[in-house]
């Protein structure tokens, strides 16, 4: 996979993950063109299209378009499954995920994506394991945050809640 974009039906970009090096200018250009192309597609059309020298796989979930660019030798149908798996992970994590969850917790959405895909490939094919890893990291971050806050409030000794 070369990149993944999430955008709303109005064309607002909610998430962008790039697995190839491109300048900001190029990224903006690609995003603009691709968003336009995908939004222009009619509902009866298939989920794949050729764009430049890439294959684009996209699927709409409620108000969000999930759009991936894959290479010639990649399997389009399994990419649909990858997208679906990502949506399931988000759903499990946020509990009935919606666009707002992604908007207000975008760093978490990125984080979940980074535990699922690395360099454009799936690193873990078990849903459970991905969620477990995210949970652990969450916990660690939360505890550290508490430590940090308490330290800055100037308390010399502190009790830490560890669940």
């Amino acid at each position, binding site marked *: 996979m070369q990149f993944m974009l999430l955008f709303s039906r109005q064309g607002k970009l909610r998430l962008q993950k790039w697995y190839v090096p491109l300048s900001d200018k190029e990224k903006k250009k690609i995003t603009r063109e691709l968003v336009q192309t995908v939004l222009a597609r009619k509902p009866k059309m298939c*989920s794949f299209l050729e764009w430049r020298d890439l294959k684009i796989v996209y699927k709409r979930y409620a108000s969000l378009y999930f759009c991936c660019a894959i290479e010639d030798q990649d399997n389009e149908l399994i990419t649909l499954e990858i997208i679906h798996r990502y949506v399931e992970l988000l759903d499990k994590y946020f509990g009935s995920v919606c666009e707002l969850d992604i908007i207000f917790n975008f760093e978490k959405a990125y984080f979940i994506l980074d535990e699922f895909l690395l360099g454009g490939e799936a690193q873990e094919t078990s849903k459970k*394991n991905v969620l477990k890893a995210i949970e652990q990291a969450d916990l660690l971050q939360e505890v550290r945050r508490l430590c940090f806050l308490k330290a800055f409030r100037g308390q010399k000794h502190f009790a830490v809640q560890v669940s």
Partner: protein
Amino acid sequence: MPAPIRLRELIRTIRTARTQAEEREMIQKEFIVEFGTNAIHSLSEYNHFYSSMIQPVKSDLNHSTQYVQGLALCTLGCMGSSEMCRDLAGEVEKLLKTSNSYLRKKAALCAVHVIRKVPELMEMFLPATKNLLSEKNHGEILHTSVVLLTEMCERSPDMLSHFRKLVPQLVRILKNLIMSGYSPEHDVSGISDPFLQVRILRLLRILGKGDDDSSEAMNDILAQVATNTETSKNVGNAILYETVLTIMDIKSESGLRVLAINILGRFLLNNDKNIRYVALTSLLKTVQTDHNAVQRHRSTIVDCLKDLDVSIKRRAMELSFALVNGNNIRGMMKELLYFLDSCDPDFKADCASGIFLAAEKYAPSKRWHIDTIMRVLTTAGSYVRDDSVPNLIQLITNSVEMHAYTVQRLYKALLDDISQQPLVQVASWCIGEYGDLLVSGQCEEEEPIQVSEDEVLDVLEGLLVSNLSTPVTRGYSLTAIMKLSTRFSSMNRIKKVVSIYGSSIDVELQQRAVEYNALFKKYDHMRPALLERMPIMEKTATNGPAEIVQTNGETDSTILDTKHLPSITQPASQVGQCNYHICFCFAGIPPMTAYNKNGLKIEFTFERANPNPNIAVITIHATNSTEADMTEFVFQAAVPKQQLRMRVKLTYTHKGSPVQDLAEVNNFPPQSWQ
């Protein structure tokens, strides 16, 4: 769980701090590592801070918390620059050998990225790949391992041969996946770890390609996957799709190949348009090698022409053209013409070209051929490619018995619509050529129409003045009018038109009119011969579909003109114009064959220039009578000052090899130089 232990340690350490400042420092230090890694995450590769981040990432890779290490691997694996990859490859290689599967799989994908960025580093990961596929890992790192192995095999033939020995192991793993019971962790709609299945199939494809033994070793498992995979959902079809791709690429036995094509055939009938799309794409790839098997699904493919999706339609069109042959031409052409009528403008040019090609190859009769051409010109006339026009003209010229029918149909089409330029150009040319047949009502194929010379000239003159006509079209119609001066009796009218355009603003039109005027005034004795009916153009064997055939009439007077006069020939170099053959043999100097060897024949024809009879214009006609093209043709001539003699050097490319020849031409007829 490492986190709480680490945390307790952290708390203990902080408690030892004696001042608030020290406390803050300790916590900040812990935090910056994390923050630093996150910061890199949001930097783009072109940020100049990048190289200074190598150290923090390096230390993160060696961090005691796997979460931090994971973040570092992720950062490096997603957007590490070549510089970073070079510096940190060693750390990645170390982590590839760790027993911690969480890190090991990230390291594997990180290694993939490193290899993509710096291919020379591939070797250093080889030792670590030794046990990647072993069962000890409970399959946790299998997916990423297969991805890494695939990357290495794709990039290096040596690695490919080295890893071929893994085929039995991969086959075993795949077998276990499909035979094993329900595994809730990796299940997707009842299928065990489809992601891994697909990656294994892809690696098998690479390993089996071109290798008999490996292909044989995977034959059974491929058949098993192909027949046992559940197809009710997309995920099963994804696996089948990958299986088909693998079967088609390796050296599989014919039974397996037929099985694969039949799977694609079933895909075509699937309600899911995505499945139909991949089926058409795959069939397009295999139609050359497994033509007969794909032919069996022709009617389903043709149905896809009516699909709503643009990509599906395009593929169905390409596939349809690939499947047209002498047996199915009539039926297929019906469908394709209907498609041409109703498809998007983007398709029309390609479709029209495809139809012309197919018609040329497989036309069951000349009448059918002309009718098909007419149908294309009238329905998609403005989308037809410019280079089709000379091609069609040649075709029409050679269909001698159809001349009257053709000119009549084209004339009628012009009465309806003069906006489609390719149609208008072909029609003008035909009327100029066969106008006499038109007015004498000689059509046998259908009811001949009654039309007078004046009516025909009205139509042609209409084209000259119409806003819809392009300059090229105007050129065609003026020439056509001129040609009719030898076929019609209404000379005065034609003379008048020609003289009017002698002062046209359009330079091309003006030049023609001036020349034609000259033809009337000074060269009237030459006119009938000059404007006589075009001879049948000898066709050289067509090689590829898109070739424009060399005609007998090609002139290239630019090489040998001793002085460039207001020439009567149409410049042969203009695209989209037909090559106008003008016979110069009436000038009293007989033509001669200057060179005739290996299928290349060069003829010279002569004309005395008027008013200066001391100047002879020699035109060369070069023809290729072999089956292969002659390309990059260069003709060089050296002429001594006294007696007319010529040394000629020819170079061209024929059947892929360069040909060079030297010749002397000294059989010039005495009249040419006396």
